[in-house]
């Protein structure tokens, strides 16, 4: 009885080049709710494959769907659809509509996994769709210009989606979120993208962890969002005149912990962001570790390592209500007489020179000049221009060993 029901509900329809059913769209037409459409290895030249019932579209040995640059390839318009194991190439480029390799429109419970997308415009485009998963996809674009390239994974008005284990390279924005809440983005690798590795706006209560963002045009941009958790991410080699690890703009009540910022022009660029905890992060060999650009209140920087950055912190105001405590600063020159591991003199991370540079950017050309070292030293001894309460009262003598295994 159960078996009968089971087979009655879930049959498998096979599609291959030599089968009775030769097209994927044809296979879907034959299927009913709960069925599996199994696509064998081969090349299928199809566009506008519309999945309008809850089926599993399963590729065997990575069959290729070639869109021949004619437009959108898979469109999901039903709940509970699974797409698994395809190579999708040649999505059409358009200046009027955002063609995607896989698009989900207003549906729940989708699962998109193990896809390989190449030569694409937009990759996976989720539109007003909730409670789905996007797992282990490889997206490799060939974007050259921002205006005619799309994003790898785009979420627009989505809730409760998990994006995990994806690799996104050479597109415009690696992962893009707008108006999307309660999203988990983890274990992704986003690199060599034209603009941002991860870009999100107006998206609240999201979690980003264990991702790697590497060598993107401008790094990661986080704007106009609340209650963000960023843990264990690695931001590295975002190097260029306008690049940064993360850009935080109008972000409130976030936790940024256990991240690594390595060799970025600017580690974190902060504007108008309040009540953020920066803890246990490593800032190593950045141009600027943290650049604070005004209107940032009640932030806490605790237990971070600042190593070999050209500038640790820059500020452009005299007002400070942020707290720096218990960090390790490789530029610290104080002493520790009582041997408790905490330096006896406070550390002032803001140099006078960074103030001058903020005011007149051309003066940066005097970087590492002896004169600059002298005025920095005199400012350190008696602060006149830099906020005199901006200091780490308990600077550590030794770097903290953050366990990130």
């Amino acid at each position, binding site marked *: 009885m159960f078996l009968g029901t089971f087979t009655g509900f879930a049959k498998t329809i096979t599609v291959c080049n030599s089968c009775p059913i030769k097209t994927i769209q044809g296979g879907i037409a034959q299927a009913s709710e709960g069925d599996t459409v199994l696509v064998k290895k081969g090349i299928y030249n199809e566009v506008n494959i519309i999945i309008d019932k809850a089926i599993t579209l399963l590729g065997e040995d990575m069959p290729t769907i070639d869109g021949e640059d004619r437009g959108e390839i898979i469109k999901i318009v039903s709940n509970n659809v699974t797409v698994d194991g395809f190579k999708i190439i040649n999505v059409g480029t358009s200046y009027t509509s955002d063609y995607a390799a896989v698009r989900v429109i207003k549906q729940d419970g989708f699962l998109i996994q193990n896809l390989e997308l190449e030569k694409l415009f937009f990759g996976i485009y989720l539109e007003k769709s909730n409670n789905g998963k996007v797992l282990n996809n490889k997206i490799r674009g060939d974007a050259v210009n921002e205006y005619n390239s799309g994003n790898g994974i785009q979420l627009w008005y989505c809730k409760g989606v998990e994006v995990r284990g994806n690799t996104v390279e050479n597109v415009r924005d690696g992962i893009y979120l707008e108006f999307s809440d309660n999203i988990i983005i983890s274990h992704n690798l986003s690199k060599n993208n034209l603009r941002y590795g991860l870009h999100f706006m107006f998206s609240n209560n999201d979690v980003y962890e264990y991702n790697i963002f590497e060598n993107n045009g401008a790094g990661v941009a986080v704007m106009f969002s609340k209650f963000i958790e960023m843990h264990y991410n690695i931001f590295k080699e975002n190097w260029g*005149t306008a690049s940064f690890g993360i850009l935080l703009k109008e972000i409130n009540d976030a936790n940024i912990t256990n991240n690594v910022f390595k060799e970025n022009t600017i580690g974190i660029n902060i504007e108008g962001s309040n009540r953020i905890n920066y803890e246990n992060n490593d800032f190593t060999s950045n141009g600027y570790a943290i650049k604070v650009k005004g209107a940032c209140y009640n932030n806490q920087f605790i237990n971070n390592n600042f190593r070999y950055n050209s500038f640790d912190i820059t500020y452009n105001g005299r007002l400070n209500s942020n707290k720096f405590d218990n960090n390790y600063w490789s530029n610290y020159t104080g002493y520790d007489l009582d041997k408790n591991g905490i330096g006896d003199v406070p550390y002032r991370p803001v140099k006078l020179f960074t103030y001058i540079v903020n005011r007149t950017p*051309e003066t*940066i*050309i005097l970087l*590492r*000049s002896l004169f600059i070292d002298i005025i920095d030293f005199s400012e350190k001894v008696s602060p006149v221009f830099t906020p005199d309460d901006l200091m780490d009262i308990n600077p550590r003598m030794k770097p903290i060993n953050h366990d990130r295994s």
Partner: protein
Amino acid sequence: MLKILKYSFYDLVRSRWSYVYFLFYLLLGVVLLFLNNDLSKAVITLMNVIIILVPLIGTIFGVMYYYDSREFTELLLAQPVKRSSIFLGQYFGVATSLAMSLVIGLGLPFVFYGIFNSSAIWDFSLLLVTGAFLTFIFTALAFVIALSNENKIKGFGYAILLWLFMAVIYDGIFLMSLLYFEDYPLDKFSLAATMLNPVDLSRVLILLKLDISALLGYTGAVFQKFFGTNFGLILSSAMLAVWVIVPTFFIWRIAKRKDF
């Protein structure tokens, strides 16, 4: 001239000071490399040393040598030797031996460390070349000062002042003028002001070769565009060469007319 150059050179190479100078650089190189273990970091620290210490030592050593060898110079002047050859010979002798101490002293530890197999080789050679240039420039300036001042104390004073001006005060004036004229486009001005001071020019050349050029933002991009091209490189080398040639010409001229 060559004979006097050779004599001055051998005299200096045998002297204690060259050894001290040589050993200092050798030690510096070794310490930097084996405490740091990071080649590009070591190059940055070396840059600081080169743009500050090399001019200082060049100036002081040049002045010192001139005053010290004054009696010998007077003896030489009694011989049928051209005046210009005496002084130019002495100058090149001092400058060459100083430059050699620098290049060999710093070069040896880096060679043993394996600079030839490293990508930092060009940065490093640029460092040594600018260091050698700075030695020649500041020794020449020191000779000019020493030749025009009979009084030792005065000579030393001017020499130190010259170094102080080039290494510190110039940048202060530069910074002040940048701040004062901040409402105007300053790219051309800062380029010119950099070109005019050999210390600044060397510093910017090395900075741009190191990876921190992106840090310089828009200004850096302007500089990179200028110095990154062959034209910029040739022009800045020419500028450094001019800084050697002009004081050398002055040595020649002053030496020709001077009464002893």
